[in-house]
Protein backbone atom coordinates (compact mmCIF):
# COMPACT_ATOMS: atom_id res chain seq x y z
CA UNK A 1 0.00 0.00 0.00
CA UNK A 2 2.65 2.52 1.03
CA UNK A 3 4.56 2.16 -2.18
CA UNK A 4 1.74 3.18 -4.49
CA UNK A 5 1.07 6.73 -3.31
CA UNK A 6 4.65 8.05 -3.52
CA UNK A 7 4.95 6.70 -7.07
CA UNK A 8 1.98 8.77 -8.14
CA UNK A 9 3.46 11.86 -6.54
CA UNK A 10 6.71 11.30 -8.39
CA UNK A 11 4.91 11.04 -11.67
CA UNK A 12 2.86 14.19 -11.28
CA UNK A 13 5.74 16.35 -10.09
CA UNK A 14 8.11 15.01 -12.75
CA UNK A 15 7.42 17.11 -15.85
CA UNK A 16 7.35 20.46 -14.01
CA UNK A 17 10.76 20.03 -12.50
CA UNK A 18 12.29 18.77 -15.71
CA UNK A 19 11.70 22.06 -17.47
CA UNK A 20 15.17 23.49 -16.66
CA UNK A 21 16.59 20.61 -18.67
CA UNK A 22 15.15 22.07 -21.83
CA UNK A 23 16.63 25.50 -21.14
CA UNK A 24 20.14 24.98 -22.47
CA UNK A 25 21.62 28.24 -21.23
CA UNK A 26 21.54 27.09 -17.62
CA UNK A 27 24.69 25.48 -16.28
CA UNK A 28 24.05 21.75 -16.01
CA UNK A 29 26.47 19.99 -13.73
CA UNK A 30 27.16 16.33 -14.47
CA UNK A 31 25.61 15.50 -11.10
CA UNK A 32 22.36 17.29 -11.92
CA UNK A 33 22.20 15.46 -15.20
CA UNK A 34 22.73 12.13 -13.45
CA UNK A 35 19.91 13.05 -11.07
CA UNK A 36 17.53 13.66 -13.98
CA UNK A 37 18.59 10.38 -15.53
CA UNK A 38 17.96 8.59 -12.28
CA UNK A 39 14.49 10.09 -11.93
CA UNK A 40 13.52 8.74 -15.31
CA UNK A 41 14.44 5.21 -14.23
CA UNK A 42 11.31 3.56 -12.80
CA UNK A 43 13.13 0.59 -11.25
CA UNK A 44 15.53 2.88 -9.43
CA UNK A 45 12.60 4.91 -8.10
CA UNK A 46 10.97 1.71 -6.81
CA UNK A 47 14.30 0.77 -5.19
CA UNK A 48 14.52 4.18 -3.55
CA UNK A 49 10.97 3.83 -2.25
CA UNK A 50 11.69 0.39 -0.79
CA UNK A 51 14.87 1.56 0.93
CA UNK A 52 13.29 4.80 2.17
CA UNK A 53 10.46 2.70 3.57
CA UNK A 54 12.88 0.43 5.45
CA UNK A 55 14.89 3.40 6.72
CA UNK A 56 11.72 5.02 8.08
CA UNK A 57 10.70 1.72 9.66
CA UNK A 58 14.12 1.42 11.30
CA UNK A 59 14.02 4.99 12.63
CA UNK A 60 10.48 4.83 13.97
CA UNK A 61 10.65 1.19 15.09
CA UNK A 62 9.50 1.81 18.70
CA UNK A 63 6.46 3.76 17.47
CA UNK A 64 5.29 1.01 15.16
CA UNK A 65 4.81 -1.65 17.76
CA UNK A 66 3.75 -1.96 21.36
CA UNK A 67 5.91 -5.01 22.08
CA UNK A 68 9.59 -5.32 22.78
CA UNK A 69 11.65 -7.33 20.27
CA UNK A 70 13.16 -9.46 23.01
CA UNK A 71 9.98 -9.85 25.09
CA UNK A 72 9.42 -13.58 25.54
CA UNK A 73 5.80 -14.62 25.68
CA UNK A 74 4.33 -11.47 24.18
CA UNK A 75 1.80 -13.80 22.73
CA UNK A 76 1.23 -17.53 22.56
CA UNK A 77 3.96 -19.62 20.97
CA UNK A 78 3.90 -19.96 17.19
CA UNK A 79 0.57 -18.22 16.64
CA UNK A 80 -0.22 -17.50 13.02
CA UNK A 81 -0.57 -13.86 11.88
CA UNK A 82 -3.59 -12.14 13.43
CA UNK A 83 -4.77 -8.67 14.46
CA UNK A 84 -2.56 -8.59 17.59
CA UNK A 85 0.50 -10.15 16.02
CA UNK A 86 0.60 -9.09 12.37
CA UNK A 87 3.41 -11.42 11.43
CA UNK A 88 2.59 -14.05 14.05
CA UNK A 89 4.90 -15.13 16.89
CA UNK A 90 7.95 -17.37 17.09
CA UNK A 91 8.67 -20.43 19.22
CA UNK A 92 9.29 -18.27 22.31
CA UNK A 93 6.14 -16.27 21.80
CA UNK A 94 8.01 -13.16 20.62
CA UNK A 95 6.20 -10.87 18.20
CA UNK A 96 7.71 -11.44 14.74
CA UNK A 97 6.58 -8.05 13.40
CA UNK A 98 8.41 -6.27 16.23
CA UNK A 99 11.51 -8.33 15.65
CA UNK A 100 11.46 -7.60 11.90
CA UNK A 101 11.02 -3.87 12.54
CA UNK A 102 13.91 -3.73 15.01
CA UNK A 103 15.90 -6.07 12.79
CA UNK A 104 15.73 -3.46 10.05
CA UNK A 105 17.78 -1.19 12.31
CA UNK A 106 20.45 -3.83 12.76
CA UNK A 107 20.63 -4.74 9.10
CA UNK A 108 20.85 -1.14 7.91
CA UNK A 109 23.41 -0.21 10.55
CA UNK A 110 25.55 -3.25 9.73
CA UNK A 111 25.25 -2.50 6.03
CA UNK A 112 26.09 1.16 6.49
CA UNK A 113 29.15 0.72 8.66
CA UNK A 114 30.50 -2.32 6.82
CA UNK A 115 30.22 -0.49 3.48
CA UNK A 116 31.64 2.74 4.90
CA UNK A 117 34.60 0.91 6.36
CA UNK A 118 35.27 -1.03 3.19
CA UNK A 119 34.84 2.14 1.12
CA UNK A 120 37.23 4.26 3.17
CA UNK A 121 40.01 1.68 3.43
CA UNK A 122 39.47 0.29 -0.06
CA UNK A 123 39.54 3.73 -1.66
CA UNK A 124 42.63 4.73 0.27
CA UNK A 125 44.54 1.58 -0.67
CA UNK A 126 43.26 1.77 -4.25
CA UNK A 127 44.52 5.34 -4.61
CA UNK A 128 47.91 4.40 -3.20
CA UNK A 129 48.21 1.44 -5.56
CA UNK A 130 46.95 3.29 -8.60
CA UNK A 131 48.84 6.52 -8.11
CA UNK A 132 52.22 5.34 -6.90
CA UNK A 133 52.31 2.16 -8.94
CA UNK A 134 55.49 0.07 -8.94
CA UNK A 135 56.08 -1.96 -5.75
CA UNK A 136 53.30 -0.23 -3.79
CA UNK A 137 50.82 -1.35 -6.42
CA UNK A 138 52.43 -4.79 -6.54
CA UNK A 139 52.16 -5.21 -2.76
CA UNK A 140 48.59 -3.95 -2.36
CA UNK A 141 47.27 -5.71 -5.46
CA UNK A 142 48.71 -9.07 -4.41
CA UNK A 143 47.02 -8.76 -1.00
CA UNK A 144 43.74 -8.01 -2.78
CA UNK A 145 44.27 -10.99 -5.08
CA UNK A 146 44.85 -13.28 -2.13
CA UNK A 147 41.72 -12.01 -0.38
CA UNK A 148 39.65 -12.44 -3.52
CA UNK A 149 40.98 -15.95 -4.01
CA UNK A 150 38.83 -17.07 -1.06
CA UNK A 151 35.06 -17.27 -1.35
CA UNK A 152 34.04 -14.13 0.51
CA UNK A 153 31.73 -15.82 3.00
CA UNK A 154 34.47 -18.31 3.88
CA UNK A 155 36.88 -15.47 4.53
CA UNK A 156 34.26 -13.75 6.67
CA UNK A 157 33.76 -16.96 8.66
CA UNK A 158 37.51 -17.23 9.18
CA UNK A 159 37.76 -13.63 10.37
CA UNK A 160 34.81 -14.03 12.75
CA UNK A 161 36.32 -17.28 14.02
CA UNK A 162 39.50 -15.40 14.89
CA UNK A 163 37.76 -12.38 16.43
CA UNK A 164 35.00 -14.33 18.14
CA UNK A 165 31.31 -14.42 17.12
CA UNK A 166 29.43 -11.19 17.73
CA UNK A 167 27.53 -8.65 15.67
CA UNK A 168 30.43 -6.14 15.80
CA UNK A 169 32.93 -8.73 14.64
CA UNK A 170 30.59 -9.83 11.86
CA UNK A 171 30.43 -6.19 10.78
CA UNK A 172 34.23 -5.92 10.81
CA UNK A 173 34.55 -9.16 8.86
CA UNK A 174 32.10 -7.96 6.21
CA UNK A 175 33.96 -4.65 5.94
CA UNK A 176 37.27 -6.46 5.49
CA UNK A 177 36.06 -8.83 2.80
CA UNK A 178 34.65 -5.86 0.84
CA UNK A 179 37.90 -3.85 0.94
CA UNK A 180 39.49 -5.50 -2.12
CA UNK A 181 36.33 -4.92 -4.17
CA UNK A 182 36.57 -1.17 -3.62
CA UNK A 183 40.34 -1.20 -3.74
CA UNK A 184 40.54 -2.81 -7.15
CA UNK A 185 37.78 -0.61 -8.53
CA UNK A 186 39.47 2.59 -7.37
CA UNK A 187 42.89 1.42 -8.48
CA UNK A 188 41.77 0.69 -12.03
CA UNK A 189 39.84 3.95 -12.19
CA UNK A 190 42.81 5.96 -10.90
CA UNK A 191 45.10 4.32 -13.43
CA UNK A 192 42.80 5.09 -16.35
CA UNK A 193 42.11 8.67 -15.24
CA UNK A 194 45.80 9.37 -14.72
CA UNK A 195 46.21 8.95 -18.46
CA UNK A 196 43.44 11.41 -19.30
CA UNK A 197 44.47 14.51 -21.14
CA UNK A 198 43.03 16.84 -18.50
CA UNK A 199 45.41 15.37 -15.95
CA UNK A 200 48.30 16.07 -18.32
CA UNK A 201 46.91 19.58 -18.77
CA UNK A 202 46.73 20.02 -14.99
CA UNK A 203 50.35 18.92 -14.71
CA UNK A 204 51.29 21.36 -17.46
CA UNK A 205 49.74 24.10 -15.33
CA UNK A 206 52.20 23.26 -12.58
CA UNK A 207 49.66 21.79 -10.18
CA UNK A 208 50.93 19.75 -7.26
CA UNK A 209 50.42 16.01 -7.55
CA UNK A 210 48.42 15.92 -4.30
CA UNK A 211 46.01 18.49 -5.65
CA UNK A 212 45.70 16.67 -8.96
CA UNK A 213 45.02 13.43 -7.13
CA UNK A 214 42.35 14.73 -4.76
CA UNK A 215 40.79 17.44 -6.93
CA UNK A 216 40.79 15.77 -10.32
CA UNK A 217 41.54 12.05 -10.17
CA UNK A 218 39.38 11.21 -7.16
CA UNK A 219 36.23 13.20 -8.10
CA UNK A 220 36.30 11.60 -11.52
CA UNK A 221 36.42 8.12 -9.99
CA UNK A 222 33.55 8.80 -7.61
CA UNK A 223 30.71 7.63 -9.88
CA UNK A 224 31.64 3.93 -9.99
CA UNK A 225 32.47 4.04 -6.27
CA UNK A 226 28.94 5.26 -5.50
CA UNK A 227 27.44 2.53 -7.66
CA UNK A 228 29.61 -0.12 -6.04
CA UNK A 229 28.78 1.16 -2.55
CA UNK A 230 25.06 0.90 -3.23
CA UNK A 231 25.37 -2.62 -4.60
CA UNK A 232 27.69 -3.61 -1.75
CA UNK A 233 25.13 -2.32 0.75
CA UNK A 234 22.80 -5.09 -0.38
CA UNK A 235 25.54 -7.72 -0.35
CA UNK A 236 26.72 -6.65 3.09
CA UNK A 237 23.21 -7.09 4.50
CA UNK A 238 23.02 -10.49 2.87
CA UNK A 239 26.42 -11.45 4.28
CA UNK A 240 25.43 -10.25 7.74
CA UNK A 241 22.30 -12.40 7.52
CA UNK A 242 24.38 -15.36 6.37
CA UNK A 243 26.76 -14.97 9.30
CA UNK A 244 23.78 -14.60 11.63
CA UNK A 245 22.26 -17.74 10.16
CA UNK A 246 25.49 -19.62 10.80
CA UNK A 247 25.48 -18.40 14.39
CA UNK A 248 28.55 -16.24 13.83
CA UNK A 249 26.81 -12.89 13.97
CA UNK A 250 24.34 -11.49 16.42
CA UNK A 251 23.86 -13.50 19.60
CA UNK A 252 20.65 -14.98 21.04
CA UNK A 253 17.99 -12.36 21.77
CA UNK A 254 19.09 -9.80 19.15
CA UNK A 255 16.42 -9.55 16.44
CA UNK A 256 18.81 -10.06 13.54
CA UNK A 257 17.10 -11.29 10.35
CA UNK A 258 19.59 -14.04 9.53
CA UNK A 259 19.55 -15.26 13.11
CA UNK A 260 15.73 -15.27 13.06
CA UNK A 261 15.83 -17.44 9.96
CA UNK A 262 18.14 -20.01 11.49
CA UNK A 263 16.25 -20.06 14.82
CA UNK A 264 12.96 -20.80 13.10
CA UNK A 265 14.05 -23.09 10.32
CA UNK A 266 12.72 -26.16 12.11
CA UNK A 267 9.22 -24.62 12.02
CA UNK A 268 9.28 -23.95 8.30
CA UNK A 269 6.37 -26.32 7.76
CA UNK A 270 4.38 -25.91 10.95
CA UNK A 271 4.77 -22.11 11.22
CA UNK A 272 6.06 -20.80 7.88
CA UNK A 273 5.52 -17.13 8.85
CA UNK A 274 8.47 -17.33 11.26
CA UNK A 275 10.77 -17.95 8.29
CA UNK A 276 8.91 -16.18 5.51
CA UNK A 277 8.86 -12.69 6.99
CA UNK A 278 12.57 -12.37 7.86
CA UNK A 279 13.47 -13.99 4.53
CA UNK A 280 11.17 -11.68 2.66
CA UNK A 281 12.60 -8.64 4.46
CA UNK A 282 16.17 -9.58 3.54
CA UNK A 283 15.13 -10.13 -0.05
CA UNK A 284 13.30 -6.80 -0.29
CA UNK A 285 16.15 -4.74 1.15
CA UNK A 286 18.79 -6.40 -1.03
CA UNK A 287 16.54 -6.04 -4.08
CA UNK A 288 15.98 -2.37 -3.27
CA UNK A 289 19.68 -1.62 -3.05
CA UNK A 290 20.41 -3.53 -6.23
CA UNK A 291 17.71 -1.61 -8.08
CA UNK A 292 19.13 1.71 -6.91
CA UNK A 293 22.63 0.54 -7.77
CA UNK A 294 21.68 -0.42 -11.29
CA UNK A 295 19.80 2.83 -11.75
CA UNK A 296 22.78 4.82 -10.50
CA UNK A 297 25.07 2.98 -12.84
CA UNK A 298 22.91 3.88 -15.80
CA UNK A 299 22.61 7.47 -14.62
CA UNK A 300 26.29 7.99 -13.90
CA UNK A 301 27.77 6.12 -16.83
CA UNK A 302 29.12 8.84 -19.13
CA UNK A 303 28.84 6.55 -22.15
CA UNK A 304 25.07 6.63 -21.88
CA UNK A 305 25.01 10.42 -22.17
CA UNK A 306 24.25 11.99 -25.49
Amino acid at each position, binding site marked *: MESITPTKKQRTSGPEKQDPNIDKTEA*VSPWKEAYWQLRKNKLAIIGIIIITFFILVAIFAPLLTSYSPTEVGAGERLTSPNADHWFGTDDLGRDTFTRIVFGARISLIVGFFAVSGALVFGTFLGILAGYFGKWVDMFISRIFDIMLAFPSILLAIAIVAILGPSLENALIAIAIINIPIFGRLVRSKVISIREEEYIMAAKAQGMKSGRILFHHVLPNSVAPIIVQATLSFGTAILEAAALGFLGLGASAPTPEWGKMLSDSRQFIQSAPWTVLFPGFSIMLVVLGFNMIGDGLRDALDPKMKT
Partner: protein
Amino acid sequence: MKKPVLEVNHLKTHFFTDRGEIPAVDDVSFHVNEGEVLGIVGESGCGKSVTSLSIMGLVPNPPGKIVGGEILFREQKGDKEAFEDLVKVKPKRLRQIRGNQVAMIFQEPMTSLDPLFTIGFQIIEALKNHMKLTKKEARKKAIELIQLVGIPRAEQIVDEYPHQLSGGMRQRVMIAIAMACDPEVLIADEPTTALDVTIQAQILDLMKKLNKEKGTAILMITHDLGVVAEMCDRVVVMYAGKVVEEGDVRTILKSPKHPYTKGLIQSLPKIHQREKRLYSIPGNVPKPGSIKTGCRFAARCSEVFDKCYEEDPNLLELSEGHSCRCFLYEKEGEVAHV
Protein backbone atom coordinates in the same frame (compact mmCIF):
# COMPACT_ATOMS: atom_id res chain seq x y z
CA MET B 1 68.19 41.70 -32.64
CA LYS B 2 65.78 39.65 -30.60
CA LYS B 3 67.07 37.64 -27.71
CA PRO B 4 66.16 34.01 -27.09
CA VAL B 5 63.81 33.16 -24.19
CA LEU B 6 64.15 29.45 -24.60
CA GLU B 7 67.18 27.59 -25.85
CA VAL B 8 67.22 23.87 -26.44
CA ASN B 9 70.76 22.55 -26.83
CA HIS B 10 71.63 19.01 -27.89
CA LEU B 11 68.50 17.61 -26.29
CA LYS B 12 68.33 13.83 -26.19
CA THR B 13 65.19 12.15 -24.96
CA HIS B 14 65.28 8.40 -25.12
CA PHE B 15 62.65 5.79 -24.42
CA PHE B 16 63.73 2.63 -22.67
CA THR B 17 61.62 -0.25 -23.87
CA ASP B 18 61.87 -4.00 -23.95
CA ARG B 19 63.27 -3.78 -27.44
CA GLY B 20 66.06 -1.49 -26.32
CA GLU B 21 66.76 2.19 -26.10
CA ILE B 22 64.87 4.30 -28.62
CA PRO B 23 66.12 7.81 -29.30
CA ALA B 24 62.88 9.71 -29.91
CA VAL B 25 64.66 13.05 -29.76
CA ASP B 26 68.27 12.81 -30.86
CA ASP B 27 70.52 15.80 -30.40
CA VAL B 28 67.98 18.51 -31.14
CA SER B 29 68.93 22.16 -30.81
CA PHE B 30 66.88 25.26 -31.49
CA HIS B 31 65.90 28.45 -29.79
CA VAL B 32 62.76 30.53 -29.41
CA ASN B 33 63.26 34.29 -29.49
CA GLU B 34 61.14 36.60 -27.42
CA GLY B 35 57.86 37.47 -29.07
CA GLU B 36 58.31 35.20 -32.07
CA VAL B 37 56.39 32.20 -33.33
CA LEU B 38 58.61 29.22 -33.99
CA GLY B 39 57.15 26.28 -35.83
CA ILE B 40 58.33 22.71 -35.47
CA VAL B 41 57.18 20.67 -38.45
CA GLY B 42 57.46 17.00 -39.19
CA GLU B 43 55.53 13.82 -39.81
CA SER B 44 53.99 11.77 -37.02
CA GLY B 45 56.60 10.08 -34.90
CA CYS B 46 59.45 12.44 -35.73
CA GLY B 47 59.80 13.59 -32.12
CA LYS B 48 57.92 16.89 -32.20
CA SER B 49 55.63 16.12 -29.28
CA VAL B 50 58.36 14.48 -27.23
CA THR B 51 60.44 17.63 -27.67
CA SER B 52 57.61 19.76 -26.31
CA LEU B 53 56.96 17.39 -23.42
CA SER B 54 60.68 17.43 -22.63
CA ILE B 55 60.58 21.21 -22.29
CA MET B 56 57.65 20.92 -19.87
CA GLY B 57 59.34 18.10 -17.96
CA LEU B 58 56.32 15.91 -18.68
CA VAL B 59 57.92 13.04 -20.56
CA PRO B 60 56.26 9.94 -19.13
CA ASN B 61 58.88 8.28 -16.99
CA PRO B 62 59.23 5.32 -17.26
CA PRO B 63 59.79 4.62 -20.15
CA GLY B 64 61.03 8.04 -21.28
CA LYS B 65 63.97 10.00 -19.95
CA ILE B 66 66.01 13.03 -20.96
CA VAL B 67 69.49 11.57 -21.26
CA GLY B 68 71.42 14.59 -22.42
CA GLY B 69 71.46 18.22 -23.40
CA GLU B 70 70.03 21.28 -21.79
CA ILE B 71 66.89 23.37 -21.99
CA LEU B 72 67.73 26.93 -21.03
CA PHE B 73 64.93 29.19 -19.99
CA ARG B 74 65.60 32.90 -19.59
CA GLU B 75 64.66 34.30 -16.24
CA GLN B 76 64.22 38.04 -16.00
CA LYS B 77 65.08 39.33 -12.56
CA GLY B 78 64.88 43.11 -12.74
CA ASP B 79 67.59 44.14 -15.17
CA LYS B 80 69.52 40.93 -14.78
CA GLU B 81 69.02 37.96 -16.99
CA ALA B 82 69.78 34.47 -15.88
CA PHE B 83 69.33 31.17 -17.64
CA GLU B 84 67.90 28.19 -15.84
CA ASP B 85 68.36 24.67 -17.13
CA LEU B 86 64.94 23.02 -17.04
CA VAL B 87 66.55 19.59 -17.26
CA LYS B 88 68.51 20.04 -14.05
CA VAL B 89 66.14 22.23 -12.10
CA LYS B 90 64.38 20.77 -9.01
CA PRO B 91 60.82 19.41 -9.48
CA LYS B 92 59.39 22.10 -7.20
CA ARG B 93 60.97 24.91 -9.22
CA LEU B 94 59.87 23.25 -12.46
CA ARG B 95 56.31 23.26 -11.15
CA GLN B 96 56.57 26.98 -10.47
CA ILE B 97 57.73 27.60 -14.02
CA ARG B 98 55.10 25.35 -15.60
CA GLY B 99 51.91 27.21 -16.29
CA ASN B 100 53.38 30.40 -14.92
CA GLN B 101 56.18 31.13 -17.40
CA VAL B 102 55.93 28.27 -19.84
CA ALA B 103 52.40 27.14 -20.61
CA MET B 104 51.14 24.45 -22.92
CA ILE B 105 48.01 23.66 -24.87
CA PHE B 106 47.22 20.24 -26.21
CA GLN B 107 45.83 18.64 -29.31
CA GLU B 108 42.52 17.36 -27.95
CA PRO B 109 40.35 20.18 -26.63
CA MET B 110 37.48 17.75 -26.06
CA THR B 111 39.31 15.90 -23.29
CA SER B 112 41.70 18.54 -21.98
CA LEU B 113 39.18 19.96 -19.51
CA ASP B 114 38.02 18.14 -16.41
CA PRO B 115 34.37 17.24 -17.14
CA LEU B 116 33.29 17.64 -13.51
CA PHE B 117 34.14 21.29 -12.96
CA THR B 118 32.92 24.55 -14.43
CA ILE B 119 35.02 26.53 -16.87
CA GLY B 120 35.38 29.28 -14.27
CA PHE B 121 36.55 26.86 -11.60
CA GLN B 122 39.27 25.52 -13.86
CA ILE B 123 40.52 28.95 -14.94
CA ILE B 124 40.49 30.13 -11.31
CA GLU B 125 42.39 27.00 -10.32
CA ALA B 126 45.08 27.87 -12.87
CA LEU B 127 45.21 31.47 -11.62
CA LYS B 128 45.39 30.60 -7.94
CA ASN B 129 48.05 28.03 -8.60
CA HIS B 130 50.63 30.73 -9.23
CA MET B 131 49.09 33.92 -7.88
CA LYS B 132 47.55 35.06 -4.63
CA LEU B 133 44.06 36.30 -5.42
CA THR B 134 40.83 36.62 -3.51
CA LYS B 135 37.80 34.75 -4.80
CA LYS B 136 36.26 37.90 -6.28
CA GLU B 137 39.46 38.98 -8.01
CA ALA B 138 40.02 35.52 -9.41
CA ARG B 139 36.50 35.35 -10.79
CA LYS B 140 36.82 38.80 -12.35
CA LYS B 141 40.13 37.79 -13.91
CA ALA B 142 38.61 34.55 -15.17
CA ILE B 143 35.82 36.46 -16.93
CA GLU B 144 38.40 38.82 -18.42
CA LEU B 145 40.39 35.86 -19.72
CA ILE B 146 37.29 34.34 -21.29
CA GLN B 147 36.63 37.66 -23.01
CA LEU B 148 40.28 37.86 -24.04
CA VAL B 149 40.04 34.61 -25.97
CA GLY B 150 36.95 35.85 -27.74
CA ILE B 151 34.16 33.84 -26.15
CA PRO B 152 30.86 35.72 -25.97
CA ARG B 153 28.59 35.66 -22.90
CA ALA B 154 31.62 35.39 -20.62
CA GLU B 155 29.55 35.89 -17.46
CA GLN B 156 27.47 32.85 -18.29
CA ILE B 157 30.25 30.71 -19.68
CA VAL B 158 32.22 30.89 -16.40
CA ASP B 159 29.54 28.84 -14.72
CA GLU B 160 29.09 26.33 -17.51
CA TYR B 161 30.57 22.87 -17.81
CA PRO B 162 32.93 21.67 -20.53
CA HIS B 163 30.32 19.41 -22.14
CA GLN B 164 28.19 22.45 -22.91
CA LEU B 165 30.89 23.97 -25.13
CA SER B 166 31.99 23.08 -28.64
CA GLY B 167 35.50 21.93 -29.50
CA GLY B 168 36.60 25.35 -30.71
CA MET B 169 35.22 26.99 -27.57
CA ARG B 170 37.01 24.47 -25.39
CA GLN B 171 40.29 25.12 -27.17
CA ARG B 172 39.73 28.82 -26.49
CA VAL B 173 39.21 27.98 -22.83
CA MET B 174 42.44 25.96 -22.87
CA ILE B 175 44.20 28.99 -24.32
CA ALA B 176 42.62 31.16 -21.61
CA ILE B 177 43.97 28.78 -18.97
CA ALA B 178 47.40 28.77 -20.60
CA MET B 179 47.41 32.58 -20.77
CA ALA B 180 46.16 32.95 -17.19
CA CYS B 181 49.57 33.78 -15.74
CA ASP B 182 50.94 35.64 -18.75
CA PRO B 183 53.59 33.09 -19.72
CA GLU B 184 56.70 34.08 -21.65
CA VAL B 185 56.45 30.99 -23.83
CA LEU B 186 53.35 29.16 -24.97
CA ILE B 187 53.87 25.67 -26.34
CA ALA B 188 51.06 24.62 -28.66
CA ASP B 189 51.13 20.93 -29.53
CA GLU B 190 49.02 20.63 -32.68
CA PRO B 191 46.39 22.99 -31.26
CA THR B 192 44.16 22.93 -34.32
CA THR B 193 44.50 19.36 -35.55
CA ALA B 194 41.27 18.19 -33.91
CA LEU B 195 39.24 21.18 -35.10
CA ASP B 196 37.50 21.78 -38.39
CA VAL B 197 39.02 24.21 -40.85
CA THR B 198 37.02 27.37 -40.12
CA ILE B 199 37.52 26.96 -36.38
CA GLN B 200 41.20 26.27 -37.05
CA ALA B 201 41.56 29.65 -38.71
CA GLN B 202 39.81 31.35 -35.79
CA ILE B 203 42.04 29.69 -33.21
CA LEU B 204 45.17 30.56 -35.20
CA ASP B 205 44.00 34.18 -35.48
CA LEU B 206 43.45 34.24 -31.74
CA MET B 207 46.93 32.87 -31.05
CA LYS B 208 48.46 35.37 -33.43
CA LYS B 209 46.58 38.19 -31.73
CA LEU B 210 47.82 37.09 -28.30
CA ASN B 211 51.33 36.82 -29.69
CA LYS B 212 51.18 40.40 -31.01
CA GLU B 213 49.37 41.96 -28.05
CA LYS B 214 50.97 40.17 -25.14
CA GLY B 215 54.33 39.45 -26.72
CA THR B 216 54.09 35.78 -25.77
CA ALA B 217 56.53 33.67 -27.73
CA ILE B 218 54.82 30.64 -29.25
CA LEU B 219 56.35 27.29 -30.00
CA MET B 220 53.98 25.87 -32.58
CA ILE B 221 54.15 22.14 -33.09
CA THR B 222 52.36 21.01 -36.19
CA HIS B 223 52.45 18.78 -39.22
CA ASP B 224 50.49 21.29 -41.25
CA LEU B 225 52.59 23.53 -43.47
CA GLY B 226 49.54 25.72 -43.99
CA VAL B 227 49.56 26.53 -40.28
CA VAL B 228 53.28 27.24 -40.51
CA ALA B 229 52.83 29.63 -43.43
CA GLU B 230 50.08 31.45 -41.61
CA MET B 231 51.60 31.67 -38.16
CA CYS B 232 55.31 31.23 -37.91
CA ASP B 233 58.29 33.54 -38.12
CA ARG B 234 60.84 30.75 -38.18
CA VAL B 235 60.59 27.02 -38.81
CA VAL B 236 62.43 23.96 -37.59
CA VAL B 237 61.90 20.86 -39.72
CA MET B 238 62.36 17.58 -37.85
CA TYR B 239 62.81 14.11 -39.25
CA ALA B 240 63.25 10.93 -37.21
CA GLY B 241 64.28 12.70 -34.04
CA LYS B 242 66.69 15.15 -35.68
CA VAL B 243 66.53 18.71 -36.96
CA VAL B 244 67.05 18.55 -40.73
CA GLU B 245 66.48 22.14 -41.65
CA GLU B 246 66.00 25.42 -39.86
CA GLY B 247 65.36 28.89 -41.15
CA ASP B 248 62.89 31.72 -41.41
CA VAL B 249 59.54 30.86 -42.83
CA ARG B 250 60.02 32.58 -46.22
CA THR B 251 63.31 30.86 -46.94
CA ILE B 252 61.99 27.45 -45.98
CA LEU B 253 58.78 27.69 -47.98
CA LYS B 254 60.22 29.52 -51.02
CA SER B 255 63.58 27.82 -51.35
CA PRO B 256 63.81 24.69 -49.25
CA LYS B 257 67.20 22.99 -49.32
CA HIS B 258 66.83 19.62 -47.66
CA PRO B 259 65.27 16.95 -49.89
CA TYR B 260 62.81 16.12 -47.09
CA THR B 261 61.59 19.70 -46.78
CA LYS B 262 61.33 19.87 -50.56
CA GLY B 263 59.26 16.72 -50.55
CA LEU B 264 56.97 18.05 -47.81
CA ILE B 265 56.31 21.26 -49.71
CA GLN B 266 55.84 19.42 -52.98
CA SER B 267 53.22 17.19 -51.43
CA LEU B 268 50.99 20.14 -50.53
CA PRO B 269 47.91 20.48 -52.74
CA LYS B 270 48.10 23.55 -54.92
CA ILE B 271 45.03 25.45 -55.95
CA HIS B 272 45.73 25.35 -59.70
CA GLN B 273 47.05 21.82 -59.74
CA ARG B 274 45.56 19.68 -62.48
CA GLU B 275 47.25 16.37 -61.74
CA LYS B 276 45.00 13.70 -60.27
CA ARG B 277 47.37 12.47 -57.58
CA LEU B 278 49.26 14.47 -55.00
CA TYR B 279 52.97 14.00 -54.73
CA SER B 280 54.05 11.92 -51.78
CA ILE B 281 57.46 11.08 -50.43
CA PRO B 282 58.05 7.37 -51.07
CA GLY B 283 58.36 5.05 -48.09
CA ASN B 284 57.49 5.54 -44.44
CA VAL B 285 59.02 7.30 -41.48
CA PRO B 286 61.63 4.88 -40.12
CA LYS B 287 61.09 3.57 -36.64
CA PRO B 288 63.17 5.67 -34.27
CA GLY B 289 66.48 3.98 -33.64
CA SER B 290 66.19 1.59 -36.59
CA ILE B 291 68.76 3.49 -38.66
CA LYS B 292 72.16 3.28 -37.06
CA THR B 293 74.50 4.67 -39.68
CA GLY B 294 74.20 7.30 -42.34
CA CYS B 295 71.55 9.89 -43.02
CA ARG B 296 68.15 8.91 -41.67
CA PHE B 297 66.39 10.15 -44.74
CA ALA B 298 68.70 8.30 -47.18
CA ALA B 299 66.28 5.44 -47.88
CA ARG B 300 63.54 7.79 -49.03
CA CYS B 301 65.68 10.52 -50.56
CA SER B 302 65.51 11.26 -54.28
CA GLU B 303 69.02 12.70 -54.38
CA VAL B 304 70.76 10.01 -52.38
CA PHE B 305 74.37 9.02 -53.06
CA ASP B 306 76.80 6.53 -51.51
CA LYS B 307 78.07 8.78 -48.77
CA CYS B 308 74.56 9.18 -47.35
CA TYR B 309 74.51 5.54 -46.24
CA GLU B 310 77.92 5.71 -44.60
CA GLU B 311 78.03 8.93 -42.62
CA ASP B 312 75.61 11.03 -40.68
CA PRO B 313 75.59 14.55 -42.15
CA ASN B 314 76.11 17.56 -39.92
CA LEU B 315 73.86 20.57 -39.71
CA LEU B 316 75.43 23.09 -42.08
CA GLU B 317 74.83 26.79 -41.92
CA LEU B 318 73.99 27.85 -45.47
CA SER B 319 73.29 31.48 -44.78
CA GLU B 320 72.46 33.67 -41.80
CA GLY B 321 69.90 31.75 -39.76
CA HIS B 322 69.35 29.05 -42.37
CA SER B 323 70.85 25.65 -41.81
CA CYS B 324 70.38 22.23 -43.36
CA ARG B 325 71.51 18.70 -42.59
CA CYS B 326 72.52 17.32 -45.99
CA PHE B 327 75.70 16.35 -47.86
CA LEU B 328 74.45 18.06 -51.00
CA TYR B 329 75.36 21.42 -49.56
CA GLU B 330 78.67 20.49 -48.02
CA LYS B 331 80.59 22.74 -50.39
CA GLU B 332 78.10 25.59 -50.21
CA GLY B 333 78.08 25.30 -46.46
CA GLU B 334 81.83 25.60 -46.34
CA VAL B 335 81.72 28.52 -48.71
CA ALA B 336 79.15 30.20 -46.53
CA HIS B 337 81.49 29.94 -43.57
CA VAL B 338 84.57 31.34 -45.31
